[in-house]
């Protein structure tokens, strides 16, 4: 298998993600790690809560990785995404791509995170001292 897509309720293991995409044929591995930031638009964030429509999220992520294999000469692709409550600094998503040459790995990795943010049914709620908001819900 050249693709691994998983949703996790517990902490993501970045090193294990990198190890999984590594292969003797690879000349480069590109990794994107999305982490929980302590503020949004100058306002202090206490924590994030991620919710996923799990079967559809997996299905949409599979579509994205299939597009990646069709567009770039990449070898292995991994996407791990958290659900549940995340504290500041925790890892929310890991995307790892291996390829023979770096350009394909960079471009594919960026395509995956950019497309994930547009199409994959996962939602995050920012929790502040004085309230909470579902990100991107309102114009």
């Amino acid at each position, binding site marked *: 298998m050249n693709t691994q897509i998983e949703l996790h309720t517990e902490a993501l293991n970045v090193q294990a993600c990198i190890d999984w995409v590594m292969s003797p044929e690879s000349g480069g591995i590109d990794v994107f790690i999305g982490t929980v930031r302590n503020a949004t638009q100058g306002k202090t964030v206490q924590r994030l809560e991620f919710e996923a429509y799990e079967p559809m999220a997996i299905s949409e992520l599979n579509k994205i990785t299939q597009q990646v294999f069709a567009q770039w000469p990449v070898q292995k692709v991994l996407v791990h*995404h958290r659900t549940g409550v995340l504290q500041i600094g925790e890892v929310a998503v890991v995307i790892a791509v291996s390829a023979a040459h770096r350009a394909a790995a960079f471009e594919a990795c960026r395509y995956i995170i950019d497309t994930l943010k547009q199409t994959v049914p996962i939602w995050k709620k920012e929790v502040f001292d004085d309230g909470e908001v579902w990100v991107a819900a309102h114009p």
Partner: protein
Amino acid sequence: MKVNVLAFGIAKDIFGGSSIAVELTGDDTTANLKSTLETAYPRLKQLASYMVAVNNEYANDTLPLSERDEIAIIPPVSGG
């Protein structure tokens, strides 16, 4: 026709639960489901956008629905 509708993210707050039963009168399309829901839950119209998913696929407005479909309201996604 009565359909069951799953809700996620802010849609769960708007519906007051993670699933609701909706009685559809008139045609059985996604468009009719959306207008029925918007009448019952006007806050849906304040969202930046929202989609309907049927059996884990994004659906267009003309898609016919059946009582056996898994239907979900997908407010603007914000993963990553």
